[in-house]
């Protein structure tokens, strides 16, 4: 019989602990693990590829200095990184550069199964999707990228955005309808021009 109970620390926490101890290896492993989701998050918000790269590097440089100054998180690194990424984007673009999309909450057309709106959305290319996405408010973009792009849970998204779960639920609803309207405008342009 074995009576030794070994602590079962999840791998990420262990890595974080090593990084806080100053292990560059651990820091770079963290970088390799998280670059892709963070870059994707930023890139969908930022049109310019090089700007997106710069912002992504800022996120990770910030993490490295957090390790140095002992302010790095002990858990939930993903949430921490998304929060930092979000703040960095805000700083770059200003918190209130936005087109408004009010009066959309009640917009709820009857959509038969084969309706042209759905057909149009299915045929959208990446560029036009991104373009439409960027016409939304910052928060609307964020909630859609986190929920649909990154498939984070409602709770995790709320945590990252510093909002209540119920507020995020309403926000994602408004955001998706704002996006539909943006797609609708694209469609009009396509059909008219």
């Amino acid at each position, binding site marked *: 019989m074995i009576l030794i109970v070994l602590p*079962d620390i999840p*791998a990420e926490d262990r890595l974080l602990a090593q990084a806080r101890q100053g292990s560059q290896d651990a820091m770079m492993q963290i970088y390799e693990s998280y670059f892709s989701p963070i870059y994707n998050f930023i890139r969908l918000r930022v049109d310019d590829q090089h700007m*997106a790269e710069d912002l992504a590097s800022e996120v990770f440089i910030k993490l490295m200095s957090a390790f140095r100054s002992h302010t790095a998180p002990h858990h939930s690194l993903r949430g921490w990184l998304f929060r930092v990424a979000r703040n960095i984007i805000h700083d770059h673009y200003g918190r209130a550069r936005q087109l408004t999309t009010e009066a959309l909450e009640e917009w709820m057309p009857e959509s038969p199964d084969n309706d042209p709106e759905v057909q149009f959305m299915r045929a959208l290319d990446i560029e036009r999707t991104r373009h439409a996405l960027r016409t939304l408010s910052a928060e609307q973009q964020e909630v859609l990228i986190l929920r*649909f*792009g990154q498939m984070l849970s409602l*709770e995790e998204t709320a945590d990252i955005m510093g909002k209540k*779960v119920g507020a995020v639920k309403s926000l994602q609803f408004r955001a998706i309808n704002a996006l539909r309207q943006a797609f609708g405008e694209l469609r009009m342009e396509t059909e008219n021009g």
Partner: protein
Amino acid sequence: MADQDLLNAFDNCINRLAFGQTVDDCLRAYPQYAPALRPMLEAGLAIRRARVNAAETTQAQVRVRARVEMAARAAPTRTAYPLRPLAALAAALLIVFLVVSGGAVTLAQNSLPGDPLYSIKRLTENVRLTISENNPALQAEFAARRIGEIQQVLAFGRATDVDFAGKVEAISGADWVVAGLPLRVPENIPGAAEIRTGDEVEINAYTTSTRTLIAREIHLTEPSEREPLPTPTPVPTRSIATSTPLPTATATPVPTNTPPPSWTPTRTPTPTRTPTITPTSSATDCVPFQPQGWEVYTIQAGDTLSALAAIRGITLDELMRVNCLTNPRLIFAGQRLYLPPGPPPPRPTAQPTTAVPAQPTAPIEDINPPPGDNNPPPGNDNVPGDNTNDNHDDDNDNDNDDDDDD
């Protein structure tokens, strides 16, 4: 304000999509809202498709790496302790104990790189190799076991250090295939440039949570120095005997495939099989994956993911990753999961006092037990209604880290 039910239905559908269901799957659950929900969900899927392509991400990752490395170096360098003396002593004592007590060795046999008992597994192997005077069959068995372990670690998305040996099957830029494993070889790894397809190599590498295997060191295996291993060459899907007790001296024959076409010293450009790997893109495209040796388990009322993980000797995190779960509370009786083999979880009374950090046992909402219509991949099919408001997530200690507001 929009209809609260529709709001909830929409949220529930997003969860279902995250679990791999289709738009139609969800609309069937909410027929009354189907016309309203469909275009919303299709719009959401358009966002998912707009993910940055893997090539761009990889390029950016390489370009940004140097900057981050510089920042990492600026941090105080205190090398991470690999195994502290006391721990080494403890491990040594434990191994003696394990070897003496025989049967208990199996405890470590299922461990994977990164597990506390993994070093013991490797030590046991070394002891057995020594005893058997480096029996080539045993060496091959252990080599193949490394590959299987790495496949599992990758499936879990566990970030850890690994080492293995095998044949280089393909090289396409930084993407290699070694012993059937997709391997990323960063630039300026010493000696990597000299290695060709067909070479036998030993590799020290690490895995990331995005299921990427990245090389740290690569060495050509020198035939003069060691017994020519009956190489576990193309081991596409080695089945490692996870639960069976180790065969003792009579090592099970490794399926030695037909000898690989011997490569001549004059390295003719071998037909490079381009590996079909997209190293970084898998972070969110989660597909439940049944690791070898795992079974399909049907959740019973009263089960919690943390208890299941504990009793089967994996972490909650791994359990969730393998099964593509994003919320540990979002399970229900009848749902099917992949689990490593092991004892059934104890029913209500006794919570297993295991190593997994204690967790408030989540109440199981066994609403809508699925009408057994789902197919083998574990039934992520039926996401229970709506579990959102004031459910605190399990890791409720992720607070006060957001000191980076500006």
